[in-house]
Each structure stands twice: as structure tokens, then as C-alpha cells.
């Protein structure tokens, strides 16, 4: 669990960390679309360059990113291999056996998939590593504000999201504690056959659910005791302000996108 870095925050002080979470969220989302627009090797090279530049300016070491990719390796490898073996005929055929083909088109396709995977994971990891979960929640709710017009309770949703994020580390700690206690009572987590493994999680899940429900009840009592009502318009403790560096980042990003589109095969 501890080498799974996706979804964790790494407190550093870099320009990427200081960016407005809204601009980071929007940028990551646009980046996702842009990655799928690229189709020539040069356009991919430009995106790789942009990604590396973003990682470098976050002051987080590249090695840390690569280590964090390891849990995703199987997923990536599987997709690449499927793409390689089952892609439609096209170009030179290198290998053929019943329904399996390795063709030139397949090679290119799997290469493209690999790069896309890498770029998207890198960028979204950068987002979560450089943004505090609560900032992500604030940013999301601020971006969702227009949905109020269609009577979606944005504030309540934002509160739920913030509480959920707030309790992730608490419940993780709780889970570690309970696992330790059950290990000391002779449970082997993650060992033995599938059924034995599944069974070994009952002594973890039951107490974890109990404590989560107790916590939820305590929290709601505490919130009500302090006068929380979900219908009223709430002010924010964290106020997001769009800074010059956000504008600058977007200018750079749009320039990169423009260059990328120019080198794209149309």
C-alpha cells in the first residue's frame, strides 16, 4: 500500500503546488482531451516535453513518479499486449497465429497507447501529488457552481466530498490499526487461496464499518450541535483566487497545444 503514490499529496513549495486548484483541475481535464488529439510522433514529443517540464517545475523527483507507476504496470502491460496482438491487419505482418497478429499497425497502436497511458497517469499523479485533497474538493465545488442553476445541491455535495476526503487518512489509520490487532491474533492478510484471503478480510471490514458508522454519527451530532444546516448558503474558509501564475500557466499550455495541433496529421 505504501508505494502506491497515486492519490497522495506531497507537501512541497513549488509553482505547481501554488497554482489555483481550479486551474490545475481544468488543465488536467483539457490535457486529457489534448492527449487524445495528438497523432504524430512529433506531437507526442511535444506533449512529453510539456509533461516533463511540469514535473520538473513541481520539484518532485522524477524517480518518485516512476516508482509510483509500478502498481499500474500490469494494467499498462495488459492493455499494450492486447493492443499488440489483436489490432486489425495493416502494414507488414511480423507474426501470425490463428487470430493473433503482430502487424506494423499493431506495433504503432500499442506504442501510442503506452505513451497515452504514461502521459495521463503522470499528469493526474502530478495533480494529486501537488494539490491537497481539500483544495481539490474546494476547486471542484467552485467549478460545479453553475450546476446550481439546475437545482443540484452543490454546497451539500462539496461538503460530502470534503468530509469523505478528510476521513480517508483517518480510516486508513484505523484500518492499519485493526489489521495489526488481527495479525497479532494470527490472521494472515493476503496469504492462502482466494477464499481464505476473502475470509481474512471479515475481521478487518466488520470493525472498520463499525467505527466508520460511529464516527459518522459522532460527526453529525457535533455538526448539528454547532448549528450546521445544509440548506443555507455557506461561506468558505478557503477562498480561491486566480493569480497571475495561473494565467501564465494557461498561456504556456495553450501555446503548447497550438504547437501540438500544428504538428498533428490532419
Amino acid at each position, binding site marked *: 500500500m505504501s508505494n502506491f503514490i497515486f492519490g497522495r499529496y506531497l507537501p512541497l513549495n513549488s509553482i505547481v503546488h501554488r497554482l489555483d486548484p481550479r486551474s490545475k483541475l481544468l488543465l488536467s481535464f483539457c490535457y486529457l482531451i489534448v492527449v487524445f488529439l495528438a497523432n504524430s510522433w512529433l506531437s507526442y514529443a511535444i506533449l512529453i516535453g510539456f509533461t516533463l517540464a511540469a514535473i520538473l517545475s513541481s520539484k518532485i523527483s522524477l524517480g*518518485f513518479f516512476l516508482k509510483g507507476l509500478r502498481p499500474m504496470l500490469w494494467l499498462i502491460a495488459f492493455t499494450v499486449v492486447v493492443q499488440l496482438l489483436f489490432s486489425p491487419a495493416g502494414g507488414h505482418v511480423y507474426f501470425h497465429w490463428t487470430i493473433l497478429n503482430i502487424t506494423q499497425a499493431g506495433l504503432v497502436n500499442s506504442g501510442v497507447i503506452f505513451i497515452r497511458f504514461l502521459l495521463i497517469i503522470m499528469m493526474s499523479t502530478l495533480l494529486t501529488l501537488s494539490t491537497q485533497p481539500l483544495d481539490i474538493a474546494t476547486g471542484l465545488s467552485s467549478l460545479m457552481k453553475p450546476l446550481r442553476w439546475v437545482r443540484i445541491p452543490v454546497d451539500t455535495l462539496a461538503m460530502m466530498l470534503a468530509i469523505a476526503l478528510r476521513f480517508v487518512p483517518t480510516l486508513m489509520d484505523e484500518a492499519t490499526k485493526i489489521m495489526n490487532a488481527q*495479525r497479532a*491474533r*494470527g490472521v494472515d492478510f493476503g496469504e492462502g487461496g482466494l477464499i481464505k484471503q476473502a475470509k481474512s478480510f471479515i475481521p478487518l471490514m466488520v470493525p472498520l464499518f463499525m467505527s466508520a458508522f460511529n464516527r459518522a454519527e459522532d460527526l453529525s451530532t457535533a455538526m448539528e450541535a454547532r448549528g450546521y444546516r445544509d440548506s443555507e448558503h455557506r461561506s468558505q474558509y478557503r477562498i480561491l483566487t486566480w493569480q497571475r501564475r495561473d494565467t501564465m500557466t494557461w498561456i504556456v499550455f495553450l501555446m503548447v497545444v497550438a504547437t501540438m495541433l500544428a504538428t498533428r496529421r490532419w
Partner: protein
Amino acid sequence: MAITFEHVGYTYQAGTPMATPALSDISFTVPDHGYLAIIGHTGSGKSTLIQQINALLKPTTGKITVDDFTITPQTTNADLKPLRRHVGMVFQFPESQLFEETIQRDIAFGPQNFGVSEEEANQRALDMLKTVGLDESFADRSPFELSGGQMRRVAIAGVLAMQPKVLILDEPTAGLDPQGRQEMMTLFNRLHQEQGLTIILVTHQMEDVAAYADEVAVMQAGKLLTCATPQEVFSDPTWVQNSDIDVPRAAKFAQRLGKRGVKWDQLPLTADQLADQLVQHWPGMGGQHE
């Protein structure tokens, strides 16, 4: 079972940017049938330290010996089950480990994991219920309908049912009422005396340290300041003040009397010792009680 720590160090998330050292160069020995208390402020590494003893956390450097088991940074998980069978661990707020449908099955869970037959485990569960001061009528009830103090007892029974030779207690009385506290500590002491259990107690209650422990280890910022008898540790007022630890109430009282001229042969640490020495100083006072 004797326990030996040799230059043990532990770092959380070693090898990542989040690495935080928690223990450094810890060496001490607890003899077989010993009773060691570990004291120190929150965050001083007490809980990290005790988790090394049954290898829930493995040392980053150094070596731990528990009887003939050796734990080093290279120890693999496969070798640990026999060790954990002998080292019972009562965590802080152990009631959070309860999960079974009935109390009996929850207590029998540990022994069964270590290969005890269902029948014997159930029998042990009934015995342990009595040991922790609950009667057999509890056996078929759900652990979740009990009071906090009763849940604590059931959880402790679940650890005792494994019949460990070493019992590690991490603030076992936190959150209990004074009477429950007293009963629990008396129970642990009885197990220590009668069955020869080696006990390691993490606590903030200096009275318990004075009353039960053979030796006390003082932790500060991941380091072991000292490991000596409670008498040695609490008797040196300057050392106690410099290392920022609390002393038992009786000792505090005795020290204040000391400032007013009362001479102690040996600083009394418990109320009983204090009373005895006072009676010796003023023989007339004892007579009035009889």
C-alpha cells in the same frame, strides 16, 4: 520468554521522501518473567517500539531476539506465525478489534488461527470470560451490545485465550473508570505472578509503574533515555525534571515532605510504602489505626 533489543532503529516509509525516523539505536533486555513498563510522551516511539516485538513492524536496522526467534530487517512474514502465537498484544482501545457474532466466537478466534481445535478454543473462551471478570452468560451475546468497559474485557480475553508467554499492553486502562482500571491492572499482575507471563506495559500512569514494574524504560523522541528499576528512575529529582517525566503521586508527596526535613531511607513510590515509612518515623501514628 526473554526479549533482547540490539541497536534497533526504525524509520517509517524508509526510502521515500516521506521517511520519518521513529526509533534509533534502542538496546535493552527484558528477562524471562520480567515486568517492564515503558513511559514517555506521546510520539516518543512507545507504540512503534512494542510493535517490533511481534514483528508487526520490522526493524530497519539492528536485531531483536524473543527467546529463540530472531527478527532482523531481512525476516520474512512466513516465519512469524510461531512468534505471534507466543506474543500476545493488547493494543490501545482493543475493543475496536471485535467482529464476531458472539463473544465466545470472538475470543476463540485467536486460538483457532493458531491451530487450536474449535472445541478447545470455545472452552478457553469460557475460561477467559471468567478470568476477565465476566460470567458465562455473556458467551452467546453479541460483542456490540456491551458497554465500552465490557468490550475492553472481551478484547483482552481474546488475546489471553491464545495463551501467550509474553503479554504486551499498550495503555490497556485508557478510558476506563478507576475501579475498572484497578481490576485490570490486578488481573495482569496476577497473570504475571501465577503464570509467569513476561509483561510489557506502555502507560502514562506512574502509579502503575511504581506498583507493578520491575524495570521502567523511558523513551524520548525515538531514543531510550534509560532502562532501570522504578526506584532508580524516580529517585533522582534532577534527572526526572530534566527528562520531563512524571513521578507517582506518593513519591511527589514524599519529595515535598523531604523538602520540609523528613529523611527517607528510600524514596517511597506507592501509597503503601509511604504509609509504612511514615509509621516508622512517627511510631505513635501507627498505633492509632489499630
